[in-house]
């Protein structure tokens, strides 16, 4: 019974982790069709911002929830202005440019902080479940991920800015004739996506520590989740996370984490073979 609870927890945790690392990418890729290869590094920078701020005496929660997203939003704003803005509509060029940005960020962080793991200790302690215990912080992670996803969904569908963003992403020329400044919508979208990625990195820092090339561990899984999800922005990647997460968690539990991650990739290949435009094409009619 106890081990069953722990297993369920691991499954939910795995879904939440996939959702958390993918949300920022889903916003940027899903809305702007920009493949941001520096996504993993935005996560990494969020982690570093948290650890550094905390070492400088800033409260851990403040470092995670405020400092990190704001810092990465700033990096995102600069990257958008200097690189991404010039390349809208050039998919492959953007991929190369953001890959370059990714290498630059890894190099810069390595030069400043060295190629070693830094960390902060996870707050909140443990909750015992029979013979086992789970980290209360991981429960907090699941909760805040749910909160992030739900508020993104609400913002997109019930606010003025959500409506404008959805219009600009569907057809920018038309949006312009309605008085919408699409350049600004894109810039804001990219910055919001960067901030969410930074927050994801911040929240992961206490459980995984930070390393200059830690982004690589997340970027592939994030892309697989977003692309398997397909066209429907939030519901798409969320359903993909819900399908992929349990498979990864269960196989990691019964076999090894390597098998878990490999099966996640394999399952994504099968999904995309059967539904080339992603899981969400089941209810959006494949647009």
């Amino acid at each position, binding site marked *: 019974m106890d081990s069953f609870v722990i297993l369920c927890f691991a499954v939910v945790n795995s879904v939440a982790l996939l959702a958390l690392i993918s949300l920022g990418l889903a916003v940027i890729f899903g809305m702007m069709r920009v493949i941001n290869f520096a996504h993993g590094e935005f996560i990494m920078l969020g982690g570093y911002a948290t650890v550094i701020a905390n070492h400088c005496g800033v409260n851990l929660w403040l470092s995670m929830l405020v400092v990190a997203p704001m810092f990465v939003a700033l990096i995102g704003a600069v990257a958008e202005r200097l690189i991404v803005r010039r390349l809208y509509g050039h998919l492959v060029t953007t991929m190369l440019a953001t890959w370059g940005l990714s290498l630059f960020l890894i190099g810069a962080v390595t030069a400043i902080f060295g190629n070693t793991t830094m960390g902060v200790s996870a707050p909140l302690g443990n909750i015992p479940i029979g013979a086992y215990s789970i980290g209360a912080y991981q429960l907090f992670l699941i909760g805040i991920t749910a909160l992030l996803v739900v508020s993104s969904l609400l913002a997109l569908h019930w606010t003025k800015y959500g*409506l404008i963003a*959805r219009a600009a992403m569907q057809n920018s020329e038309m949006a*312009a004739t309605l008085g919408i*400044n699409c350049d600004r919508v894109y810039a804001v979208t990219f910055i919001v996506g960067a901030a969410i990625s930074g927050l994801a990195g911040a929240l992961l820092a206490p459980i995984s520590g930070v390393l200059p090339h830690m982004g690589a561990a997340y970027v592939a899984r994030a892309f697989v989740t977003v692309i398997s999800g397909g066209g429907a922005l939030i519901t798409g990647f969320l359903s993909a996370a819900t399908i992929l997460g349990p498979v990864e968690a269960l196989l990691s539990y019964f076999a090894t984490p390597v098998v878990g991650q490999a099966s996640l990739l394999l399952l994504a290949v099968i999904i995309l073979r059967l539904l080339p435009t992603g899981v969400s094409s089941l209810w959006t009619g494949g647009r």
Partner: protein
Amino acid sequence: MSGPPILATRGLVKRFGGVAAVDGVDLVVNAGEIRCLIGPNGAGKSTLFKCLTHQHQPTSGHVLFEGRDLQGLATHRIARLGIAIKNQIPSIYANLDVRENIRLAGLRRGLEKRQLDRVVELTLDEIGFNERLASQPAATLSHAHRQWCELGMLLASSPRIALLDEPTAGMTREEMLKTVDIIKRLNASATVIVVEHDLEFIARLAQRVTVLHRGKVLVEDTMDKIEANEIVRDIYLGRKKEATHAER
């Protein structure tokens, strides 16, 4: 006459490679008018419209809105000044529902949420959409309803000038008559410039008609005089009229 006309173009030219789609157009439209633009295919009507909103950058020449030169303004700035366009190809957001489409267009006015809600409901009423139609994704609308949804978007944005490119294309006569009513409502607060081929539609709406031919203004007059004009008959109306009779 007091003040400058609401819209004027001076020597407007748009070239695509070596072809001048718009070739030195001087047009003056006064506030409150419903002006029809007619001309055979390729006369430059749609291109002229897109130059007015800077969806196409004019090659040379000027567009003046209430005497103000629009040169260098981005499309969204022009839209914010109150120049709204319904392009020839249906331009509605297929994935948004009708209400969201209309709401989006209404945002230009910078109203408070509750006022905007009222405008949206009023507009739905004006284009005769019931609740079922209003909450449908725009992609599922019939052809005529799409056109009306777009006119609704124009109504909701409360423009100073509405540019309509073939608003009745593909409509039955009854649908065309309903469109005439909607455009009259639009004209209550906006100057309307409309590209059309349907002669009955033009006769019901337009005070003055401008005939474009090969990127230039051929003649501008009332519909009676235009119909009597020999050159216009030759290049356009004669052919068109015979075709319409043959269809009946």
